[in-house]
């Protein structure tokens, strides 16, 4: 059956696929050329490698441009465009369409590799050939994810997923028997409502840059091992590693801020597998950075640094496999599905693990390993211990996150092996991570007082002084935030000590104007602030929406934490957490429902309003996602009031309806119903199909009658539907919440061209309600400030290392 389709824009897609092929082919070519250049040291091969790389670059940029073109022109014949965008999508979110899909996020990753590769071609000098060989090999693997080649004659087992595949080849539906199907397919399914947030526009590019950056130290290490030059790269890798730690950290921070601001997780961190998967490489990369600094200053611990930095890249690959292979299945609130690339991802991971193992075998003999004991008062000893604590902490996180992988691996030998993750993940991770955090904080503080190799004897006295300065400051926090849990108390003291120790370290630099040496100290102060902010805001988080309506809930409610929702009937003030709160109105602006909630603080004696503000928690209600709730946050200097809607009544559940009154109307009529006037405007023969009827399989004809109601000088539109599907007739009611009115069709009289409609008002004027959760996060701003300092400090440290590169050739 050959249908000649009309209206498709096939040329653009073919051009896109040409770029896909170019990027893949050129990457293979560049890999071979750079590999030979590494072995033969011939400049001509290196030149060929460059040509290959720039052809690859052209391919990647070409794919991006073509895909952007398809999305902005709404070419819905392409699956990717149909699946991830829609006509109503604001322009800013068009950008987010790029990385909503699997293919797009690989494209973003590939793009950053290309950018980093270009810098390396320009700057890496003698190291270019071996380093670029590693990078273009990764590009071969990543480009293959976009190929969509049917190598095994099985549609389900294609090599890669072509972002330019057509909707009609992706899905089977009778609509594709029609040559003009595009005239009916006029809109896409749009971007997932949870992802329509500005964080989703800026967060993925930063995070993927962090992902991409981990390959640079890895590539240098591989290059060093194969060329048996294991020390020559250290200086060049220092700034790259510092930037990796800074950018990946910033990416994690943005993810946390997004979760806090836009998703109703009830916090900035939930130990969800997706979060863990990026935290772990960051912890390992941070450990690697510190160990590399040890090597640079003392000539020791090079092997450890190499293993850690390589592990950071391998863990990025492992995390990608975890989150995109569907293996996490039921363990996360995120719905992970296997998108068909799990085999390729596993191959990508295993290939680099094996290559690194081979490289280590080849170059192991040439790694300098001085056999000297570290003095107890040497900085390098405590830095190494700190790095190891980070590694162990990362191991704990990735081990627990990998439970589904363990199930698969152990299940291979033991049948019916199926562990479920801990029922309370937050408690599980905190149990381990709080002690690790204490160790990290103490080492970050104490390490500052020691000198490399051996410190003068007065070091213990200085250390003690620093600790004694920290104590009174810690006491202020402890009393202010009322932290009485023993472990948290210790962590708080240790974190204050971290800040004090690093401020002491920083002051001389500022006095002498050598501020650029202060990067590490600033980053460490950031870590201290992050610990304090996290432990106080989470440890002392208060649920203020406790049910205080004076109803006895019975003995089932001993666990107070569970009683966290409050019901707000429309217009009725409810006391909550020192405020009198009232749910005033809801409004609907496609695609969000906004619930306007008034907060009033009354003076206890005079009863006067001392504080009054509004919060607008919003929610999208879709068939796909259920209720996707966006929090509304009142930001204060010392604390945030965080509210989100947890449940709303849907359509029919709202109140009792009076008996309906029937009217016979025709177009242009002006009539009166109770205290309202209404005009019958027109009949619409092609209205949008209501969600609920989209599942109906039979042919479907929908009509609406568009009417305007006037009350108190305001106009309200209401349009009841008349739907014929096969032999069935549907007359779904249309509602207007502001009027408390519903209208539905009774009949259409074809002869007289008039319509019989029924109108009804709600009995109870305000049966509408929302169920809301409200929490106070104290001192969360310390956390954000800490994250920003961590980023600034890392970038300053990188800048310092770049200057070192230039000053001493």
């Amino acid at each position, binding site marked *: 059956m050959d249908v000649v389709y009309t209206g498709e824009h096939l040329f653009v897609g073919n051009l896109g696929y040409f770029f896909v092929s170019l990027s893949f082919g050129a990457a293979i070519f560049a890999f071979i050329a750079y590999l030979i250049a590494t072995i033969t040291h011939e400049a001509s091969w290196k030149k060929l490698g460059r040509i290959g790389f720039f052809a690859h670059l052209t391919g990647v940029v070409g794919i991006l441009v073509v895909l952007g073109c398809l999305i902005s022109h709404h070419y819905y014949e392409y699956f990717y465009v149909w699946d991830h965008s829609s006509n109503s999508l604001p322009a800013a979110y068009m950008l987010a369409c790029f990385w909503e899909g699997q293919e797009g996020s690989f494209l973003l990753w590939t793009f950053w590799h290309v950018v980093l590769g270009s810098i390396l071609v320009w700057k890496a000098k003698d190291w270019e050939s071996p380093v670029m060989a590693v990078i273009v090999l990764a590009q071969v693997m990543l480009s293959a994810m976009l190929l969509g080649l049917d190598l095994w004659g099985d549609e389900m087992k294609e090599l890669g997923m072509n972002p330019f595949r057509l909707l009609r080849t992706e899905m089977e539906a009778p609509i594709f028997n029609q040559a003009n199907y595009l005239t009916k397919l006029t809109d896409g*399914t749009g971007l997932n409502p949870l992802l329509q947030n500005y964080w989703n526009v800026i967060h993925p590019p930063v995070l993927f840059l962090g992902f991409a950056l981990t390959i640079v130290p890895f590539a240098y290490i591989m290059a060093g091992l194969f060329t048996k030059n294991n020390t020559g790269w250290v200086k060049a890798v220092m700034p790259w590693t510092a930037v990796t730690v800074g950018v990946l950290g910033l990416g994690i921070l943005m993810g946390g801020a997004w979760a806090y601001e836009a998703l109703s997780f009830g916090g900035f961190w939930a130990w969800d597998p997706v979060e863990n998967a990026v935290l772990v490489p960051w912890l390992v990369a941070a450990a690697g950075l510190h160990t590399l600094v040890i090597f640079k200053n003392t000539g020791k611990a090079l092997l450890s640094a190499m293993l850690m930095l390589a592990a950071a890249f391998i863990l990025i690959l492992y995390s990608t496999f975890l989150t995109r292979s569907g293996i996490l299945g039921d363990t996360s609130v995120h719905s992970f599905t296997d998108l068909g690339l799990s085999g390729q991802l596993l191959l990508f991971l295993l290939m680099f693990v094996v290559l690194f193992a081979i490289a280590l075998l080849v170059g192991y003999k040439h790694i300098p390993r001085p056999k000297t004991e570290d003095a107890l008062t040497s900085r390098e000893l405590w830095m190494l211990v700190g790095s190891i604590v980070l590694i162990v902490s990362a191991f704990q996180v990735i081990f*627990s996150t990998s439970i589904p992988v363990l199930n698969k691996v152990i299940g291979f030998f033991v049948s019916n092996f199926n*562990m479920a993750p801990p029922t309370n993940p937050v408690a599980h991770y905190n149990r381990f991570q709080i002690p690790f955090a204490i160790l990290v904080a103490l080492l970050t503080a104490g390490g500052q007082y020691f000198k490399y190799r051996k410190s003068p004897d007065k070091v213990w006295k200085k250390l003690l002084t620093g600790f004694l300065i920290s104590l009174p400051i810690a006491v202020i926090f402890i009393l202010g935030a009322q932290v009485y849990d023993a472990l948290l108390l210790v962590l708080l003291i240790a974190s204050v000590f971290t800040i004090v120790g690093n401020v002491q370290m920083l002051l001389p630099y500022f006095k002498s104007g050598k501020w650029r040496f202060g990067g590490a100290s600033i980053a460490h102060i950031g870590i201290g602030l992050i610990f304090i902010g996290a432990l106080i805001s989470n440890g002392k988080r208060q649920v203020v929406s406790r*049910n205080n309506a004076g109803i006895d809930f019975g003995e089932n409610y001993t666990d107070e934490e569970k009683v966290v*929702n409050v019901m707000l009937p429309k217009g009725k003030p409810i006391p909550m957490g020192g405020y009198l709160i009232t749910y005033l109105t809801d409004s609907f602006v496609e695609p969000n429902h906004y619930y306007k909630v008034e907060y009033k603080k009354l003076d206890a004696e005079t009863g006067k309003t001392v504080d009054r503000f509004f919060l607008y928690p919003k929610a999208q209600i879709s*068939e796909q996602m*259920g209720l996707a709730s966006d929090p509304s946050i009142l930001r204060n200097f010392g604390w945030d009031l965080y509210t989100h809607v947890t*449940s709303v009544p*849907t359509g029919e559940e709202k109140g009792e309806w009076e008996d309906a009154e029937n009217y016979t109307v025709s177009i242009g009529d002006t009539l009166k119903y109770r205290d309202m006037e209404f005009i019958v405007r027109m009949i619409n023969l092609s209205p949008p*199909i209501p969600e609920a009827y989209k599942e109906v399989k039979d042919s479907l004809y929908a009509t609406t009658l568009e009417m305007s109601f006037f009350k108190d000088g305001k106009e309200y539109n209401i349009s009841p539907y008349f739907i014929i599907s096969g032999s069935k007739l549907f007359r779904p009611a249309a509602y207007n919440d502001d009027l408390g009115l519903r209208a539905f069709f009774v009949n259409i009289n074809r002869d007289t061209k008039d319509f019989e409609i029924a109108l009804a008002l709600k009995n109870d004027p305000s049966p509408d309600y929302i169920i809301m959760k409200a929490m106070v996060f104290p001192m969360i701003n310390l956390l954000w400030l800490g994250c920003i300092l961590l980023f600034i400090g890392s970038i300053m440290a990188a800048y310092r290392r770049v200057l070192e590169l230039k000053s001493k050739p």
Partner: protein
Amino acid sequence: MKKSGIIALLVIAVAVAIMIATFSDTSSYVTFKTATDNPGVEFHVVGKLLLDKPQDYNPEKDPNYFTFYMTDSTQNEMKIIFHDAKPTDIERSEKVVVIGKALNDSEFEASKILQKCPSKYKNEQVVAAENAEPQ
């Protein structure tokens, strides 16, 4: 003994401790029978919502009390009690995972509910587009 040796031993000890502690912290996917045989122990149960049985959510009385009925993979049925707001559109979930413990032989108290949404949704939209009037 050298410091590096001590550190290495400590790291191995902590790593082993972590693995053991993690295994002891894990829950398991079970049927309602196992849950009722071990009342008070927390489990994961995967199953289906029973739509023909009543769901009870009366927020005016108590916004933190929602009950429904569910069957597990062996078609055993239990009443689920959830001390939180009713998850919006839970009726549409193809599959639900409840995490919690059995209170008695007929009631299960869930502390968390994971919903798995229908996956065929997108195909239906193509079909619906086909049925719409040409514009």
